């Protein structure tokens, strides 16, 4: 049994006159420790899919089973618990708390976890040992994204969900970030899901899920994923 299973998951936004189907009976599976890349045009439903997986949103119908548990049936409290223990999120726009230093941002996220990694260590791992006491505004975008990743990783989650983590970054920095994610996936055997518009990146994935019109259009299994260093775009 796969670690993550989407079974005919639909998400319909009822806008009154119109109904927008963001997800339309999507079904796919992801195994534990897999590095997955989700591709698809804008509005295809990627973010929606990831949000549901991350327990931030609920599906209209269908089942999402993570580690054998049906999270679609979770109530609000269980969802929060699920988020706080199992999920690490990385956003396009970092979403750091401006008022906290890098270290404090990490500390903020671990203060609610039981099984966390030392914030300082994590920050060292993401290469920010010298910038730990800087506020987000004092860091570059890439550094901020690294803080965001560190913040997620420090929680020691089961999976890391990244919604266009490099969307706001230049090529080089983006690459650094992807490298960090790859490293995390490979070294920590963490399930990492990355949404991107850059299909080149899909080469690094174990599995590529292509979305279109709210449906997995294609699921490609990469037998030999490339290291990010090998990929150029």
């Amino acid at each position, binding site marked *: 049994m796969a670690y993550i299973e989407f079974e005919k998951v639909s998400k319909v936004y009822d806008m009154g006159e119109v109904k927008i189907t963001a997800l339309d009976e999507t079904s796919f599976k992801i195994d534990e420790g897999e590095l997955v890349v989700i591709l698809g045009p804008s509005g295809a439903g990627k973010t929606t899919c990831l949000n549901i997986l991350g327990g931030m949103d609920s599906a209209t119908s269908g089942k999402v089973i993570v580690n054998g548990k049906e999270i679609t049936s979770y109530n609000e409290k269980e969802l929060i618990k699920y988020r706080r223990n199992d999920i690490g999120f990385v956003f396009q726009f970092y979403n750091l708390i401006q008022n906290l230093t890098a270290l404090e941002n990490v500390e903020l996220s671990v203060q609610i976890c039981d099984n966390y990694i030392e914030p300082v260590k994590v920050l060292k791992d993401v290469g920010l040992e010298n910038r730990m006491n800087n506020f*987000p505004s004092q860091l570059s975008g890439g550094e901020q994204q690294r803080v965001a990743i560190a913040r997620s990783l420090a929680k020691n989650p089961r999976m890391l969900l990244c919604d266009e983590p490099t969307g706001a970054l230049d090529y080089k920095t983006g690459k650094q970030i992807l490298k960090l994610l790859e490293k995390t996936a490979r070294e920590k055997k963490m399930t990492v899901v990355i949404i991107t518009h850059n299909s080149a990146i899909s080469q690094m994935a174990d599995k590529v899920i292509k979305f279109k019109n709210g449906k997995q259009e294609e699921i490609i299994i990469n037998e030999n994923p490339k290291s990010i260093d090998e990929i150029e775009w």
Partner: protein
Amino acid sequence: MKLKNRIVTLSLREIKKNIKRFASLAILSFLGVTIFVGIKLASEDMLATLDTYYDDNNMYDIRIISTLGLTKNDVNEIKMLDDRLTVYGSHSKDFIIKSNDENVILKIMEISNENTGFILNEGRLPKNKDEIVVESAMLIKNSLKIGDTIFLDIEDGEEENFKSNELTIVGRITSPEYLINGNGSSGRGSSSLGNGKVDFYSYTVSDFFNIDYYTEINVNVNNNYKTNSQEYNELIDEVKSKIEKIEEERKKQHYNEIVKEENKKIDEKEEEYLNEFNNAKKELESAHTMLLNGYEEIYASESSLNALKNQLDNSKEEIKRNEDMLKNASSQLNASKEQLESAINDINNELSKYNLDYENALVIKKVIEGVSLTKEEVISLIPKDIKIYDNVINVIDYIYDNGYSEAVGKLINGINKELIISLIPKEIENYDKIVDYIKDIDISKLRKKVINYLLDSKNIEKVKSLVPKDIPKYNNIIDVIDKCKLTVDRALELFNGIDKIQEGYEKYIEGLKELNYGNYQLENGKKEYEEYLNYYSSAIYQLENGKKEYEENLNKYNKNLEEYNTRKFDFEENIKNAREKINNIEYPKWYIYNRLDDSDYVSFLSSIESIENVSLIFPVVFFGVAIFISLISMSRMAFENRSEIGTLKSLGFNNNEIRFKYVVYSLLATLVGAALGATVGYFLLPRIIFNTYGILFEIPVFIYSSDIIQVFIGIILSMLCICGATIFTINSLIKEKTTILLRPKAPLKGKKILLERIKGVWNRFSFSNKVTIRNIFRYKKRVCMTILGIVGCTAVLLSGYAIRDSVVNLVATHFEEIFRYDDSVYVNDKISKEEVDKIFASSSIKEKLYTSVQTVKFKSSELELIAFYDESKLSKIITLKDKSSEEELKLQDNKIIVTSKFAKVHKINVNDIIEISDVNNKKYSFEVSGIAQNYLGNFIFMNRKTYEDNFEKYKTNMVYLKIDEKEEEKIISELLENTNVLGVSSTSDTLERLNGIFGSLDTIVLILVIFSGALAFVVLYNLSYINISERQREIATLKVLGFYPKEIDSYILKEEIIITILGVILGIIVGTWFGGIIVETVEIDMAQFIKKITLASYIKTILFMILFTVIVNIRVHFVLKKINMIESLKSVE
């Protein structure tokens, strides 16, 4: 085709997008305008209400009262002063009536067209002198109803002045002369009766009064000014001074008239009485002569009676003597009678031998003596045993009845000789001789001859010798002869006895007769004596009566004389007194009152003034807070509209066109709020405030002053504040370059704060506390504004309580700390100290302080001057301590101590010399030796010496008392019975009354609580709104990270709570200060409020703020819960 202005559309969309922000602006505007308009208009409306009430009911402008009453001439003279004046005389009088076992003092006034009117609440107007309308409170307090009858207790000697003493209540009224609500404990002014205060007022028809002078003159000055407006007061002062100018002349005239009239009255009375006395004197004199006559008469009759008495005594003696004599005679007679009887007895004994009794013997003797016999004697001689007795009796009857008695007698006597001869037998020897002998015998002398013959023994012997010895029975005959001789002897003897008896008897009879006569005469004499005695007794009795009568008359006379004398003396004394009284008729004093002398009016005005003062201060806070909140709120909106403004700019709109959106937006918000606020402030708030005062004041109809200008000012002020703040905020944004605007504004940078440098402290903070503290410093501007807002609310709330506290404390403190008496008693100042001592001699009176109180003036303000009889006792009842050092102050000779508020208002310092003037405008200057702490009223204190050196002789007219609590009621009622006690005012009553007055401030406090609460809500709401909206992303991030709602709440709320706490703490500090200012503003001249806020008020304020915070935060909790992570994180900030 005209295009729609899409900028306006934008404005409207903006409103729709965030209706709560719009609403909060509108509420700010609403609150500001309501408070600004409402409180100010409340004061104006109340004045207008009063003015209308007065105008509608023809309330007097000036009232004149004279100690001697007023006349028609006074009315006319005043009328002539100014043609704007309506002047009318009127009557009023206080009566004691008994109602439910309690004496109630009722003031009865006169209904007339000109007089101050009243409002008839129920029933009808009185039609005649037996009907009355009374104030509503009287019915309630005395459980009376319309139709009940009340009985007036008219004072002695006043009966003629009032035509009825039994009046039926026909209606229930309210008069503008009495503004204070009668249902409270306050009275209706002072009275000379009972406990010195009028309890209720009433009206009846003029006809009820039968007084030839007016008790008051009311003056209405025709004007269109509002009461108490400057113009009005000036006009009244002008008229008043005009009246004052003729006052002296009027008083003099009236006084002279009265003196003249009184003198005339006394003269008349004197004459009348003198006549009466003269008559009485004459009567007395005639009574006196009559008495003298009577006395003489009695004297005369007494002496004649005495003479009579002597005579009577004499005759009594004589009678006695006679009686004795008669008794002797009687006893003699009795003795002789006894002798006679025994003699008769003897004879009878003798006779019985011959079968004769004394009577027979008498007859026989008569026969023998040849005495003619009566028929009965003859009959008695006839032996009853003879056969012809009846015939013989008949013959005798016949003879005697036919007048033959003499003849018969002669016959009998003649026959006797023959008879005797015939009896002699012829054959006997010597017959012839015998016959001759017999014939010789003179019959008439026979008895004696025979007897004498027979008595002589020789004759017997002769007889014997005559007897022939030879006859056979010679011896017998001799024997017979002897026997005869013997018998004759015996008979003679008997007859002698009888004769003697006869003689004795005759003598006895005679004596008896004499005795009887004597007795008769004695009886007569006795009778006469009795009669005289009776006469004498009755005469004596009469004399006694006469004497008694005389005595009585004399007493009567003496009494009359005495009475006459005392009455005359009294009368003379009375006349003297009356004349003295005329001399003592005090020169009249006029009291010219205007409305400002009416304490009800003044307390209403001071209420208005307090409200007005509040109306100047609170709006400042409300508008101030409105400005702060608008600034925060708008800057947030501007921030949100950043890119929109950039876009508009890039589209080519100029600054004004863009600004227009915000002007429209804020104007709409302001106007919506202001319109509402103006409505509430115009219609509702004044009504509420007025109704609050309705507990205290009784004014039937509420009138709006229609001061629209105030409303406009309020709206404009609100616009200036809110629109101004909006435009100010927008301006700073609009000025920026388009490109900058289009780029998202970098979020406020996180910064280390100073506190972090102190590692020891900083590290101790928990993580979220660190964030909170940093956040607070990060959003400094907003936090400051919010704190200011909260400070404003707290301050307003606290100052509301401060007003209440200060007032409540004031009254209590005044009577607990300064004037510590239980009762103050007005006493007659004409009585001596000893008499005053006597009044307050009860042992239940623990302390007493004698004072002389009078009202004096300093500049235009009045204050009480109190001189103490014995200043050493002062400290037991009144505390005189320096207002700042609290050291005890001592009265010094010829120096005064003034009270703090008075000193403050007039800027008087120790050692200043101030000039005061008394009732007669006489001026006195004193050095101020101290300023004493005091809270209620304004006073000047001095000792007796100072008083006597500067004023007149000290006279106690007011006594402060401390009374044993249990006895207080009893003592007071005893005091009130004393005629020298003019009135008693108890501290507890005063406390109750004053607390009643000030208690109406509670509604003001409530309104402030409501409004500052509303303000607090808006402030806190805005704070939290902005806080949340600014940090939505942060919150969403936390949610994504898996923070529980509770953790998020505490993360966010901590800040708000800290800000609120800071705000409240600062607010308390500012509020304490602000409250002080408010209290000072609200303060009235007669009182010094205590600027001390109680702990309870602090606690209440804090609790209210906590409550508001909690309510807002509960809302925040739900807002936080609703924040959508996905949405919030989707877009770029």
